């Protein structure tokens, strides 16, 4: 047996282990305790498990696994890990193995004309990117641009897909440094080689400074936006509102440049409280909005009443924010330092982050939770790296270094790909990540 061979070679301490898994049958191993040398690393354990599977199933193609002991990923040799966690090596150790989470494929980067400032992959059918050439683009897949959204007069700072139930077609909101937000509608069905240029159906004016971020409510009826004027504004997204029409007609008469179908909207309400630029907003539930700002705070707002219900103070400027993880309650935020912090607002009495990931070397520009997994999140940084994190280990699971310059945005797509855009004008898609 191969195991014996390994054992003979390594004349070291052995540990009694039993491999367990939640994976489906072809990937299971007999739950018998076996003795393995204690100086095995993740790689050694992975080949071991692959061998075990191959014993039962000769057609098995080897694939990397990751190993959990007591809910923590093994990131060093087994004996060191046991020592560090002070786990007794006398008992039979139960090691759970999961598929290793790492991108397997690097798709051809999608080139833009300018820096890619934002990306949204919340809809599995397409990717929306915002670009510094003040255009937003819709990509069906890597390198396949289907729509170009034009109309902004300045850099698009943020894009957000609005999932509206019962409405055909797709609605996208973009926030721009020209102080407006625009809403766009298009269909994914038409597949023409040349990208279709479309115009916004609604322009949302009201911010007095550049709009920095946009987020849609999960029902899709409203969007909120954060801006350099220190406010968060809430907007209606529907296109058939009479008062909005009236306003738009009036404006149109004055401007006589916008085409017929464009509506204009005004903010439904304004959330005031931040003292500096609101750099990121998230609207995960019907009534709560999370916002991060340059005034070093994360705030929780009640969308109905506009009340500020929770403040988390960090000492650094915050650039990005996402809410997810365990029961969608953990707040991940990154900012003007290389540390990605994760808070648990349910923990009473403390504003200290529960997790801190500090492998980046520059500002963190974006962070996103995986929408299914409780543990995985992706972060991008100005050091040109995109990192994939698991809450169960302090080291990044994978580092994607496909960008040559600052990475400005990153997101998950289809649950198994990471999309990121940066100052090298590329949209990179790293796929084949088996998170679940």
């Amino acid at each position, binding site marked *: 047996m191969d195991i014996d061979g390994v054992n003979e070679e390594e004349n070291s301490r052995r540990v009694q282990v039993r491999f367990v898994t939640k994976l489906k049958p072809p990937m299971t191993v007999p739950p018998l305790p076996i003795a393995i040398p204690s100086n095995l690393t993740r790689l050694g354990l992975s080949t071991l498990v692959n061998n075990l599977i191959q014993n039962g199933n000769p057609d098995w193609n080897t694939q990397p696994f990751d190993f959990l002991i007591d809910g923590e990923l093994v990131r060093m040799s087994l004996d060191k890990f046991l020592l560090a966690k002070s786990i007794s090596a006398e008992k039979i150790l139960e090691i759970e193995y999961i598929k290793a989470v790492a991108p397997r494929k690097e798709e051809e980067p999608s080139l833009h004309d300018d820096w890619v400032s934002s990306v949204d992959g919340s809809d599995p059918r397409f990717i929306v990117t915002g670009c510094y050439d003040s255009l937003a683009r819709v990509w069906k897949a890597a390198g396949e641009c289907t729509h170009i959204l034009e109309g902004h007069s300045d850099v698009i700072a943020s894009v957000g897909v609005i999932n509206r139930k019962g409405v055909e077609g797709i609605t996208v909101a973009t926030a721009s440094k020209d*102080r407006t937000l625009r809403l766009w509608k298009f269909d994914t069905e038409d597949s023409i080689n040349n990208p279709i240029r479309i115009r916004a159906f609604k322009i949302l004016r009201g911010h007095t400074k550049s709009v920095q971020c946009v987020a849609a409510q999960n029902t899709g009826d409203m969007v909120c936006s954060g801006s350099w004027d220190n406010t968060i504004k809430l907007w209606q997204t529907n296109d058939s509102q009479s008062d909005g029409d009236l306003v738009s007609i009036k404006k149109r008469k004055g401007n006589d440049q916008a085409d017929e179908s464009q509506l204009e909207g005004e903010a439904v309400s304004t959330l005031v409280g931040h003292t*500096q*630029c609101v750099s990121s907003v998230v609207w995960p539930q019907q009534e709560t909005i999370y916002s991060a700002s*340059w005034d070093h705070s994360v705030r929780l707002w009640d969308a109905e009443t506009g009340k500020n219900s929770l403040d988390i103070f960090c*000492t*650094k400027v915050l650039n990005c924010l996402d809410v997810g993880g365990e029961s969608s309650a953990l707040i991940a935020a990154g900012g*003007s*330092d290389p540390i990605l912090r994760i808070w648990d607002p349910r923990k009473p009495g403390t504003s200290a982050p529960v997790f801190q990931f500090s492998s980046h070397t*520059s500002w963190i520009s974006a962070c996103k939770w995986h929408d299914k997994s409780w543990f995985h999140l992706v972060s991008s940084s100005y050091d040109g790296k995109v990192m994939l994190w698991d809450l169960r280990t302090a080291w990044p699971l994978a580092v994607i270094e496909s960008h040559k310059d600052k990475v400005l945005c990153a997101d998950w797509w289809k649950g198994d790909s990471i999309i990121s855009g940066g100052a090298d004008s590329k949209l990179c898609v790293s796929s084949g990540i088996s998170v679940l």
Partner: protein
Amino acid sequence: MKIKGEKKKRQSVRNSKSEEVEEEQPSITEQNKLKQKQLPSHSDSDSDPDYGSPYVSDSEDFPEDGDFDGSLSDSEAGESGSSGDEGVVNSDVDDGLHNDQENQSNSSESHQGVEESDSSEDEVAPRNTVGDVPLVWYKDEEHIGYDLNGKKIKKRTRKDKVESFLESADDAKNWLKVYDEYNDEEVEVTKKELKLINRLLKGKAPHSDFDPYAPYVDWFKWDDAKHPLSNAPEPKRRFIPSKWESKKVVKLVRAIRMGLIKRDKPKEEQQFYHLWGDDSSSTEKANHLSFIPAPKSKLPGHEESYNPSLEYIPTQEEINSYQLMFEEDRPKFIPRRYTSLRSIPAYDNAVKDVFERCLDLYLCPRVRKKRINIDPESLKPKLPSRRDLKPYPVTCYLEYKGHTDAVVSISIEASGQWLASGSLDGTVRIWEVETGRCLRVWEFEEAVKFVAWNPLREIPIVAVSVGQEVFILNTGLGDEEEQKNIKELLHFETPVAPDDSGDKVSVASWHQDDKHEGIRLRHFKTVSSVEWHRKGDYFSTVMPAGESRAVLIHQLSKKHTQRIPFKLRGLPVSSVFHPTKKIFFISTKKNIRAYDLQKQKLIKKLETGLREVSSISVHPGGDNIIVGSREGKLCWFDMDLSSKPYRILKCHPKDITNVAFHRSYPLFASCSDDCTAYVFHGMVYSDLNQNPLIVPLEILRGHTSSNGRGVMDCKFHPRQPWLFTAGADSVIKLYCH
């Protein structure tokens, strides 16, 4: 009568002798007196060398009285023993009753006295002969001293406390016992002694037979005296308390109260002589000239023998290799062999050595140099820890790249969203702070000297000085309404010449600049810096070569230029508006002057004491100024304190190019041509009594030198504790906390 009195006295003397050893001295004197009175002729016995003991003298006295023929020893043998009691009793009985037996009694008494004295001598003398030395010396010894034969007197075995207590409890006479330390024995107090002690306690004379109220015997013969010895009345001072004494007492009392006189000093333990200790301290203690021991030379070893064994003799190769060594490293002595002492040659360097020794002695310091032993740590001022003073810029995370030549000046928009930079490549760039994106570029023919954002957020315009011109540029960053206002502001129909000034040569002329969509202000000399007033309407320009018209103040809304009505002394370097009051600072190369713009007069002149001022920055509170100089010194002025610098920080080895205060955090920074920027904590307290606290925090490195220039400009972010530095390496760096 006379004799009787004398006898009495003698008796008492005898008694006292027999009873108490301590009473010897007074009794001796008394006796001698008596003797002298009685027998003035018998002086030869006084001078007798053997005349040491008074008792012997007494015994010698008696033959005078008549009947002394028996040997001393006989009488001693006969009547020793019960002598003491007898004397006391006798004296009581004797009192003038046996007049006929006077002589008898006298002789018997005298015998007794002799016997007594002898016995007492026996009692007292034989024991310890150590004399009057502190008994502590024998504390740790087994003996207590030496007897007459020079043998050790052993100490008695010590009883432990319990034993001695039990013994004392058992012994009924214990209270009569006294420990004699000197002889190491317990002495029981006799009845007689007890009586004496009782008398003493009662305050009576120690001897019962002493009559303090004895009738006065007037020895003086008054009969013949015609004249009294003195008839002077008693002086008054005998009857009044002494003033001087009372003063003295008061003085002493005071001294005691003040603690100058200390009573009951604890007895100092005798120190042992430190035999092996370092004698340097003892010489230091001495008052005389200190002895400087000569340096100890190494003792000669085997190799210095005239005939050392072969292993000490260097080979020829080694000797050759010495020649290659440095003079100082070379061995002073090369061992050589001589078969006999005779064959040793004369010492080569004898004269040289003597000369050098003389030189050494001639230049030898005669005084020991005393070093003050100070812990260098204690000299450091107590400063708070850097960790407590966070946040402050530490690391560079963002770089703004795009300029092709040294970036000379940077300016940050009031909200902190944008950054303007001017470079020697003739461009002005607007950057987005958060991403490092260059948003806009203006190109000019000449190198850009200075850029300054308007401090108002509603008017995002930049003032740029290029050569002799100052441009007011519209960045186009505001919303429509603001843009409209700006366009109105920057637009005017006719070029305005400064006709009101009356000068022949126009100081500055306003022009519409179509190329850059702004205003062009043409000056008559090169403009080095532009500073905005906080309200964003006025700005000042400095032309170092402009002499009397070097500093101008422009009003943007009226397109109006005026000279400052003050006479400048020296080359102006820069000018700053006071952040809150209507005060205007102009720094020349040496001094800084503060002018009140409303009253149009000089308020204050700050003397920097620097060779050449390069930059100046005013604390947002307005009362503190920092000044950077070309010699690398940074001065902090507290205007309330004095016109001299409160602190001078000498940290940069090269020119300081710029200094900056943070608008809200207690931070200030200086940047220099040595490619570093220093960040300091500069806390100004609202309490006027507390001086500003200055703590150096961080040295920011990262820029590279280019053409001898390092960091050209530094500015703080208006709202974050971040520092922007512009380098001669054409990069702008952002240091974050």
